[in-house]
């Protein structure tokens, strides 16, 4: 394998640009810079882009571009690539969260496995500023990290058939919130009132790859005032 960055064959009309070989929050400035540079250089010849933790998949229009040409474009981009912005300049998006066992049924298990009480757990989860590494699994589902090592908890052996929309969860050292009700195997700690995916909004997804995110604890009354759904898990 040649050194990084590297261009990998990803099919008839796609290249995978591998920038890094491990997960690191500092990767994201490079990933978002690559996304922007590809949009500019490919223009209408670009079909789709999928940024992730260490890579960007670039799908181009095979009817008007050969992959040798696409490869040249990407090599040029990589030769000139600089990371997007200073860490300090990325605005922080806040997700209000009601941490409570009725909407976060795995809180008790987390208390047990860590030996920490709920107050301490909530503080640990909400004090950290997370980066969005990737979106996937479902529209607007953001893979964020990294959760403090003390909170690390493996995902459930058997996924739940239905996790309510807004559920805030951790799995390993990642954290996320479910944009819509779906099956899921992550550990649920609470629920956010934020609308994570909205087909009617211009950005569609509240969170984008590279974003900085904080979970802000709110009480039940404030959560309801913000439009949060307090229906306990069991009743669903």
């Amino acid at each position, binding site marked *: 394998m040649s050194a990084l960055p590297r261009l990998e064959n990803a099919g008839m009309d796609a290249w995978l640009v591998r920038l890094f070989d491990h997960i690191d929050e500092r990767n994201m400035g490079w990933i978002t810079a690559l996304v922007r540079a590809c949009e500019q250089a490919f223009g209408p010849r670009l079909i789709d882009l*999928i940024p992730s933790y260490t*890579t960007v*998949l670039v799908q181009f229009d*095979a009817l008007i571009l050969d992959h040798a040409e696409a490869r040249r474009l990407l090599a040029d981009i990589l030769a000139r690539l600089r990371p997007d912005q200073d860490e300090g300049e990325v605005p922080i998006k806040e997700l209000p969260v009601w941490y409570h066992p009725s909407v976060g049924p795995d809180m008790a298990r987390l208390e047990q496995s860590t030996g920490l009480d709920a107050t301490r757990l909530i503080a640990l989860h909400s004090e950290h500023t997370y980066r969005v590494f990737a979106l*996937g699994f479902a529209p607007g589902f953001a893979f964020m990290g990294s959760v403090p090592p003390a909170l690390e908890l493996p995902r459930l052996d058997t996924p739940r058939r239905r996790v309510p929309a807004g559920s805030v969860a951790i799995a390993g050292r990642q954290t996320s919130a479910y944009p819509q009700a779906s099956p899921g195997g992550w550990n649920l700690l609470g629920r956010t009132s934020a609308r994570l995916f909205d087909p009617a909004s211009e950005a569609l997804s509240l969170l984008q790859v590279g974003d900085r995110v904080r979970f802000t604890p709110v009480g039940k009354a404030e959560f309801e005032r913000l439009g949060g759904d307090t229906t306990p898990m069991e009743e669903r």
Partner: protein
Amino acid sequence: MSAGFITINRPGPLTTVQDAGRFGIRRLGITQGGPADLHAWAWANWLVGNPWGSAAVEITLGGLELTAEHDCLLALTGADMQASRNGEPQPGWQSFTLKAGQRLSLDMCRQGVRGYLAVAGGFVAEPVLGSAACVVRDGLGGHRGDGSKLAEGDRLAFAGGGQARPLPVNALPDYAEPVVLGLIPGAQIAEFDGASLFEAFNRPWQVDTRADRMGVRLLGPTLKCKLTSMVSEGISLGAVQVPPDGQPIALLNDRQTIGGYPRLGTLSPLACARLAQCPPGSELRLRAISQEQALRDYRRFRTRFN
């Protein structure tokens, strides 16, 4: 012929409206959707004079019955579902008129898995995020815009216009022929052991019952890869990923946008289309092809539709 409606009397197990697919927003976790068999879908539209990308109906397994409220020009391609028009057999891969009040019935498929019904002018469906492609799991697109499959009593609007065209010679596929799928070897190919690589391309594979619009599992020799899992990364249409059990999964239109299994390579778009017509239990082989070869085949296919 002018615009109008058809009514769904019986939808079959999974019948959806599909245009070419949803592109440009996969970075938000939104999958592409679109016809699982691009080939049959494209010809259905072509036979009634529609431009590339028009919305047609994808019928999985069969079982559809509909009545025209207004005269319309239709074409049915893909799997043989023993269609009948007001009780008379209606051959596939050609256009035909369904007059107001007439009924089109499809049985369960005999050869192939998916049928495509196109109407002159295309089915009218409000695009959602740039496309009418129905993705049930994401709740996006389709005739209602919310990812619903067709249901009894649904009325589908069509634009009308269009013109019947005959199928060119050699365009009719034979789904009974042995299936050989072109696969472009991928970046992790060197991580598979030699025997596995030999077997991947020299032994037959069987289509598993776990096969849908997301992906198709293949049963056969156990492929061994030194990489067990990787950091999740973007997945192309047709990517053949190999989980630790060594049985590959070919990913189709409704696949998740990112994943973390090593990949043998990527099926060409035409190979994906062919795979989408393979019922569980059927046999196929993989053949390594270059990116250039896949591109040449695809461009040759597409020139007929532009």
